[in-house]
């Protein structure tokens, strides 16, 4: 049983992140008002409508009363210091937290006005609509072809071999991996480079034609060139998918996202147009973070 706290794993692999004591640096007068988010957390035509979301790990309240809308075909970046709950919040969107026994989610979470946490809701169907790409590239130890074909196979999306071939090719093309992989589709996926593996994981996620792709620090294990390729890919994909990306790199957030949400100790402090967040943040915590005073 996987009881590992996902936020712990994702933060643990960031040794270059310097952890400066938050309390010392934070101006004394800064108080976070619970449930109060500055900026524009809501939108008119939301894909996700999230109201008063709280997440508990046992007795620990990891997410504190967050309300947020995520727009259709929008790229939204979640930023914030380690342990602020952004990965946890991301994982609520396709119920990846379900497999953690001690994790409880409260509040209203809806995709296209359908409750995500409805007990009658089939989580398999949800995950087919909301795909996910993880921090560490995690291809199956199978061939490149089988990796991409796995999702369509289990969902029965292709009845004939030729249909499946088409899905695999178009997914790999969208992930910008086709030229590199077309001659070795039968090669084992774990033999590829880290950047290729991550793009393969993206191809695997889009093979089931999801509406939303969640990315949990997708570039943190990649070198700058591979990172650039993935970012390019995100820009292209934003035309047809809603993308939620958690990142530790503020430059990355600035480059790829339309809106940026700043998390702090389980609170959603500020949500705004990305330009606005990085040029004129409204909340002083956001300002401290993006200017590198802590985090």
């Amino acid at each position, binding site marked *: *049983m*996987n009881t*590992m706290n996902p936020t712990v794993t994702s933060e643990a692999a960031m040794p270059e992140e310097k952890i400066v004591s938050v309390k010392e640096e934070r101006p004394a007068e800064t108080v976070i008002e619970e449930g109060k988010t500055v900026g524009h957390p809501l939108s008119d035509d939301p894909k996700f409508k999230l109201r008063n979301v709280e997440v508990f790990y046992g007795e620990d309240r990891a997410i504190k009363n967050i309300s947020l809308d995520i727009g259709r075909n929008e790229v939204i970046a979640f930023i914030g210091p380690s342990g602020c709950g952004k990965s946890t919040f991301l994982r609520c969107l*396709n119920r*990846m937290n379900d*497999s953690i*026994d001690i994790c409880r989610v409260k509040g209203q979470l809806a995709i296209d006005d359908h409750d995500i946490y409805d007990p009658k809701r089939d989580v*398999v*169907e*949800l*995950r*087919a609509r909301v*795909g*996910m*790409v*993880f921090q*560490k590239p*995690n*291809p*199956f*130890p*199978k061939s490149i072809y089988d990796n991409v074909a*796995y*999702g369509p196979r*289990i*969902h029965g999306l292709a009845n004939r071999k030729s249909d499946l071939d088409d899905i695999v090719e178009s997914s790999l093309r969208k992930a910008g991996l086709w030229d590199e992989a077309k001659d070795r589709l039968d090669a084992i996926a774990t033999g590829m480079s880290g950047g290729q593996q991550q793009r393969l*994981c993206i191809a*695997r*996620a889009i*093979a*089931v034609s999801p509406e939303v792709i969640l990315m949990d620090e997708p570039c943190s294990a990649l070198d700058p060139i591979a990172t650039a390729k993935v970012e390019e890919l995100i820009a292209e994909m934003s035309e047809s998918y809603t993308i939620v990306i958690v990142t530790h790199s503020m430059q990355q957030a600035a480059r790829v996202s339309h809106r940026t949400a700043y998390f702090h100790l389980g609170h959603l402090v500020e949500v705004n147009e990305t330009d606005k967040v990085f040029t004129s943040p409204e909340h002083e915590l956001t300002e401290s973070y993006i200017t590198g005073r802590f985090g």
Partner: protein
Amino acid sequence: MTDQRSQAEIVRNSLKRRYRKERRFRMYGMLAIFIALASLAILFADIITKGHTGFVKTTITLDVTLDSDMMYLDDPSDEDQLSMADFVAPLIAALQEHIPEADSAAEKRELGRLIGSYGASEVRNLLKDNPDLLNTTQTIEFLAHDRVSTYVKHADNPRYSVKLSEQQQRWVDELQEKGVIDTSFNDVLFSRGDSREPANAGILGAIVGSLLTMVVTLVIAFPVGIAAAVYLEEFAPQNKITDFIEVNINNLAAVPSIIFGLLGLAVFIGLFGMPRSVPVVGGMVLALMTLPTIIISGRAAIKSVPPSIREAAEGVGASKMQVVLHHVIPLAMPGMLTGSIIGMAQALGETAPLLLIGMVAFIVDVPGGFFDSATVLPVQIYLWASSSEQGFIELASAGIMVLLTFMITMNALAIWLRKRLERRW
């Protein structure tokens, strides 16, 4: 404060000590491995020197004239006549041709004792099956008597006592010179069941018994063990009952095997009224004994599947069962197989629980099925090793070699399977 130079000197001096310590540490490890290897070598050398003669049989080849007057037998198809006839007389006559000096009644009897006690019945069966052979001369190969065999094989070995008279020894030497008495590969060992007579005893019955028992064990323990491991690891809720089951499985792995024998005796034989001494019951008892090993190794193998693979599968919308069947079990399979084969090898070498369910009986016939009385290799070795006849000592060692061959084969199979599966994944 020490200056830099003296500090470097201190480090240099301590380095010497550190390296010495490291060398010593390495030496301990090498010594341990040496002791282990030496013990193993001594064990093998001992077994092989004692047991290699078990693979050799002593035969007496004679031209036997199947004279009807000598045997008091006119019609070999008549059961009454067969049971009354004297089949020893033609054998003695045939021997006498090579040893003419033995002509008194006592000497003839002594001569006849060179041939194993089943010689006469061999002639009888030959005539019963082929009545036409009456009054013809046939070349027949007999197994020599155990005492002759011991003399031929171990005359110089002080650990064996020769139980032939001086006269008999002379005759055997003479027959050996003439090529009547000869030694060859002991095919009897691999083609027959147990016998009271070492020369006639074979291990085939025990091999077949072991194989049948292992099949039952595998068929029960492997699926049940894997299913239990998968359920406990993947589906069981985290609560008191699961904890309780877990603790008990770990405890079961440490229960002495003879207890499982008692359980088999009480439950399978006593309660369910299943027959004694049969491979089915033996296999069931050994399956119970092997289950904890398979479950524990299976769980460890499942635990070692990286969580990222599970997340990846869940992320594209695989259901719990699909995650388990498509990803977790295939990845855990090499580890599960290794654990299972080690458990099976352990069961193959197990004696104690089988003694209690009656698989220790003296069984001559090679078992033909799961419900035939049978014994198994280690029990057969135990029976032979505790036997008083000299001829069984070498057979016991030969049996150990056969058992070890099986074990090594199983372990090699485990390694091969693991390599193969790992390459595929």
